[in-house]
């Protein structure tokens, strides 16, 4: 009797197992379809709109004349500032926490701050930037403010990935370097950093792809949606040939341009939004794919 029961019980469990697997696969398919629908919607509405004039025109009252030139340049300029600030600070902080930080109260405070920063909604960063950079420091709604805001926003990502990358290096490597008489910094510069570069690079790319798509904090600091000019050129014809005027210029970026077009009632502008969205998706997805490839490449190459 017990045996019969067991057979029935096994059959029942097997059925549940089958149901669970089917549900998982169906859900995976649903997600794949959703993702495809999103891409398909952007392509079918926006692809035909992407041409040379779209990429090289300023926004316009007329949907078919409008383009994303100022948004592209704005995104690039803001990303430039973000890179210059976030990458050195993020890597520096990561190195400090992994290689130097003593176990004490201050280190704990730093670590708690970083993990909390990682969870703060992006729009709150925007409010902080509005109150501090725009108002108090008087930077205005400029490329500089935007770069500062986004670098603060992505800082936790870079710090965390840097730490993870450094942590995978075994202590024996550090001891080997120190035993040869290197100073701590030489050890870090010649060994820790090069060996963890793959992981750090992956983190930087993911952080930048996040920054490129950020919209809310930049709206909060007062980024304009209608910019019919480019920021001042960083290279000038007169001495000293380099100008930082562009840092103080107003700007728009791709996601804000898209938001502006989505929010309009006219359908012609929705086409522009789709085209901009397509550009954004292509850029962010390819950055992520590059990051993933890098990660798996370095994982395969280095086995401790």
């Amino acid at each position: 009797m017990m045996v019969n029961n067991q057979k029935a019980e096994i059959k029942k469990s097997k059925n549940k197992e089958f149901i669970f697997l089917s549900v998982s696969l169906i859900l995976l398919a649903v997600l794949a379809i959703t993702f495809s629908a999103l891409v398909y919607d952007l392509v079918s509405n926006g692809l035909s709109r992407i041409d040379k004039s779209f990429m090289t025109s300023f926004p316009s009252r007329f949907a078919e004349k409008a383009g994303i030139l100022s948004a592209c340049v704005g995104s690039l300029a803001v990303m430039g500032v973000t890179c210059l600030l976030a990458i050195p600070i993020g890597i520096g902080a990561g190195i400090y926490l992994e290689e130097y930080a003593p176990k004490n109260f201050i280190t704990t405070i730093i670590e708690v701050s970083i993990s909390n920063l990682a969870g703060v909604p992006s729009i709150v960063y925007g409010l902080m930037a509005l109150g501090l950079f725009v108002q108090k420091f008087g930077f205005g709604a400029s490329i500089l403010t935007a770069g500062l805001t986004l670098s603060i926003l992505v800082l936790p990502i870079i710090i965390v990935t840097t730490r993870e990358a450094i942590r995978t290096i075994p202590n024996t490597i550090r001891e080997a370097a120190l035993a040869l008489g290197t100073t701590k910094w030489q050890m870090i510069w010649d060994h820790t950093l090069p060996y963890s570069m793959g992981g750090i690079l992956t983190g930087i790319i993911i952080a930048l792809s996040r920054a490129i798509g950020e919209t809310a904090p930049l709206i909060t600091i007062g980024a304009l949606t209608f910019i019919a000019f480019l920021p001042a050129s960083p290279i000038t014809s007169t001495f000293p040939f380099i100008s930082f005027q562009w840092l103080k210029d107003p700007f728009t970026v791709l996601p804000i341009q898209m938001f502006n077009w989505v929010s309009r009632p006219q359908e012609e502008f929705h086409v522009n939004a789709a085209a901009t969205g397509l550009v954004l998706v292509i850029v962010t997805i390819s950055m992520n794919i590059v990051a993933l490839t890098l990660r798996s490449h370095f994982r395969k190459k280095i086995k401790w």
Partner: protein
Amino acid sequence: MLLRPKSRTIRNLKEFLIEKILFTTAFLAVVITVGIALTLFTEALPFFKSVTLKQFFGDKQWSPLFSDPHYGIWPLVTGTIVTTVIALCIAVPIGTIMAIFLSEYAHPKVREVIKPLLELLAAIPTVVYGYFALLFVTPLMQKFYPELSGFNMLGAGVVMGVMIIPYVSSLSEDAMRAVPMALREGSLAIGATKLQTSTQVVFPSAFSGITSAYILAISRAIGETMVVTIAAGMQPDFTLNPIRPAETMTAYIVQVSMGDLPHDSIGYKSIFVVGACLFLMTLFFNILGQLARKKFWKAY
């Protein structure tokens, strides 16, 4: 002949300076955290000089920009809660099933492919998801349910849910995979199926880790801005009905930021008040999530 090492004092000075610079970069995180809290609260406090707490928590209407202003926070809170709950109803079950599938069933090679693909869902800019919710998902839903208004919390919430699936699935999967193989073997060895092992041994063993994934997802959904701004509308409405348009806390901040309010106006101050509430809410969930996470990783 021995090479002469560089002067010891110079070398030590250099090492000392480098350490201090690196410390400064790390300490910036603390400065930023304090900066956020101070800015939010100093800008928000003057708001309560003209608005009483009773008005803030007692009124059911939020219209600080109207000539007859009301300052009741609840409509924004309900908007945030409804969209968050809808998003969680999508993300938690799907994310958990995906996590169990990836951690307990999928061949390692399949997992190596599917996990990053799932994470791509979180890489798409939120403004694109907003577009998708407003111009694809909502019209699609309207075909089955014509009463649905063009701006609505349902579509926004659902899309937001899809967006945060990877947060739930990745973190839960990490937690489940950290459960020692010995526990699975112990369960399977006495005749349990994979599903029984997953749901009755692995899931409970990883529970605090999975909880932290859920809590972080809540915090994400509360703070998410563009999807709800674009697709749920910008009219504060004290309602729990998901087919209606409503404004979330985040959407209100965007709405005011796009206008040109003078910086001493009550409307300008109000976004810092809403921002401070948002900050406190997410801070609460983040701390809770981290406590759960700590508890989990301590156990294994």
